[in-house]
């Protein structure tokens, strides 16, 4: 049974001159307790997808989907109120800017307490004990002190821990972390990611880790989805993607990160995709990577569909099956 199944989720932005699609027919599956990494560049729609699942899109956005099945119930069939309550009980989300995602006018205690109370946290004393426990769970040294503080008195890393504690207060089956460490320092980053992974494994809850940093996903995730320009380009197990990426975009992303031991040698260059990420209202015809793709062929002006490839996963590329066949031939 799946924790999350999203089929053909589209999100568009309403303007005076019509709808601008931001997310295009995204389909994603997550098993119980699975850690899914979603990687993509800014504006690729990866955050919009998360907000759409959580029902947090701004009023100017429209979403459509065949179904969004979260822990056995289809969100698309619920009324707005039911849906909000159901999602809040099953899923939680943390954002990129920990400072901004906590209310600056309330103490940590009152924000945590509010959440615990709303999710049926019992009496005042019980709630306080629960709050202390939660802060302890996320590795905060002196929970009693932190409870009395306000977000601006805490560092970014601490605030992110508090945000995680608040998300855990809902006892979610699914935790979505939208660029949780981008605003943090390297050493703090790894602590937060480790914490998220540890909590997810301990509670057998799903974790969706959204980031632009491939390296971050390589160690921690079970499966990875690669998003480009609003479309899911590749969706497969982490080791598959890392060892033999099928989509040229994924390959380019992996190649454009300097490799270990790759030292300054005159004339050596990194692999880099040409050109710029297309503006969302000026998408190319056919494959959205087309004009930048080093392997583009004539057939790439036709829009590729997301196709399953045996023993691998799903890929949106005309050339993917060919190359995998070639690979199979070579193996035999």
């Amino acid at each position, binding site marked *: 049974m799946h924790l999350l199944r999203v089929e053909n989720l589209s999100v568009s932005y309403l303007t005076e001159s019509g709808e601008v699609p931001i997310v295009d027919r995204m389909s994603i599956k997550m098993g119980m307790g699975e850690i899914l990494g979603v990687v993509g560049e800014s504006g690729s729609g990866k955050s919009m997808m998360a907000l759409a699942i959580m029902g947090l899109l701004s009023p100017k956005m429209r979403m459509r989907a065949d179904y969004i099945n979260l822990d056995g119930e289809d969100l698309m069939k619920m009324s707005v109120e039911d849906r909000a309550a159901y999602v809040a009980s099953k899923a939680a989300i943390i954002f990129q800017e920990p400072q901004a995602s*906590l209310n*600056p006018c309330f103490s940590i205690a009152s924000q945590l307490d509010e959440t615990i109370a709303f999710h049926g946290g019992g009496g005042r004393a019980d709630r306080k004990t629960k709050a202390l426990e939660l802060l302890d769970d996320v590795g905060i040294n002196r929970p009693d002190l932190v409870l009395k503080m306000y977000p601006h008195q805490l560092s970014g890393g601490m605030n992110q821990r508090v945000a995680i504690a608040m998300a855990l207060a809902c006892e979610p089956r699914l935790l979505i972390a939208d660029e949780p460490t981008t605003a943090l320092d390297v050493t703090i980053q790894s602590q937060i990611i480790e914490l998220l992974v540890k909590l997810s494994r301990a509670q057998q809850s799903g974790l969706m880790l959204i980031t632009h940093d491939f390296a971050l996903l390589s160690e921690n995730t079970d499966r990875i989805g690669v998003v480009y320009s609003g479309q899911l380009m590749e969706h497969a197990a982490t080791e598959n993607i890392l060892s033999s990426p099928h989509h040229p975009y994924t390959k380019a992303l992996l190649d454009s990160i300097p490799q270990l031991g790759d030292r300054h040698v005159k004339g050596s260059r990194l692999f880099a995709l040409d050109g710029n990420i297309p503006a969302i209202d000026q998408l190319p015809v056919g494959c959205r990577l087309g004009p930048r793709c080093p392997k583009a062929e004539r057939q790439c002006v036709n829009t590729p569909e997301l196709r399953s490839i045996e023993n691998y996963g799903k890929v949106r590329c005309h050339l993917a099956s060919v190359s995998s066949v070639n690979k199979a031939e070579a193996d035999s």
Partner: protein
Amino acid sequence: MTSIIFRQFLLLILGLFTLTLFTFGISQLFPDPLILSDAHAKTINDSLIENYFNYIAFLSQGEWGLSRISGRSVLDEFFIYFPATLELTTIAIIFALVLGLPLGIYAAENKNKWQDKLIVSTTLIGYSMPIFWWGMLLVLLFALTLGISPVASRIGFEYDILPVTGFMLIDTLLSDQPYALAAFQNALQHLVLPTIVLGTIPLAIFTRVTRSAMIDALSSDYIRTAKAKGLPYDRIIWSHALRNAMIPIVTVIGLQISVLITGTLITEKIFAWPGIGKWLLEAVYRRDLVTLHGGLLAIASLVIIVNIAVEVLVHLVNPKLRHKK
């Protein structure tokens, strides 16, 4: 927190100092010297600095001079006229807040919809209203044509109310006359039109500020977090968003005080309201410089004090400022 109060207190002293420097400077620049009392006259000599300190000394003893019109102490007169003004301005501010906050919140919730556009354009009309004309129009319509509101003054002359606190609404209730309750009602009726006239511009401003502060708050990350937690809509608006929006709103309320005093002068003239405005206008028509000096000093000190108080309040509602070392 104590350090903030200390700092604001210093600013208050500094403000009052510049103010007295200003009034003292005026009194020196003009040939008609400002003499607060006979004792004060004796101390005046050639040294400016000494004169200033004497001036301060007399002011702080409460010797603000005698009115040239009535011959009474200016400070005493101020306290006779001030309650009427305070009553009117307080109620006008409450009126503007009670109406402006919900309107602003409602507009923010419906951002860019027709309700929002209607509210925003109405506030622009209110903001562009010359209030002396607005007052006359209201009097013409409600008092003179429809006759459902009194034309002027604080209370009907058939009621004889002993001034105890100076606030008509309280005094009528305190009165032991048999018509105390009727008088209270009558006083309320007299307040309606002046309140609307004086409150119109603050109402327009509060509505706009509330709207934009709420729009800012509602589009912030922490509201998204609150929504994700599944909190009820009303709680998100009235607790999480409004609490943050209060910071700019309180700041603007503070800035309105001096604008409100200007409005009071006009409103009191239209409604023959026996307050500070009437008192000062009388003084200027009859060139009573001592009264004007006292009035200017009292009102400006008041505005400075209120501004400082609001500043402290801003620090109180904003935890970021509260904990600043």
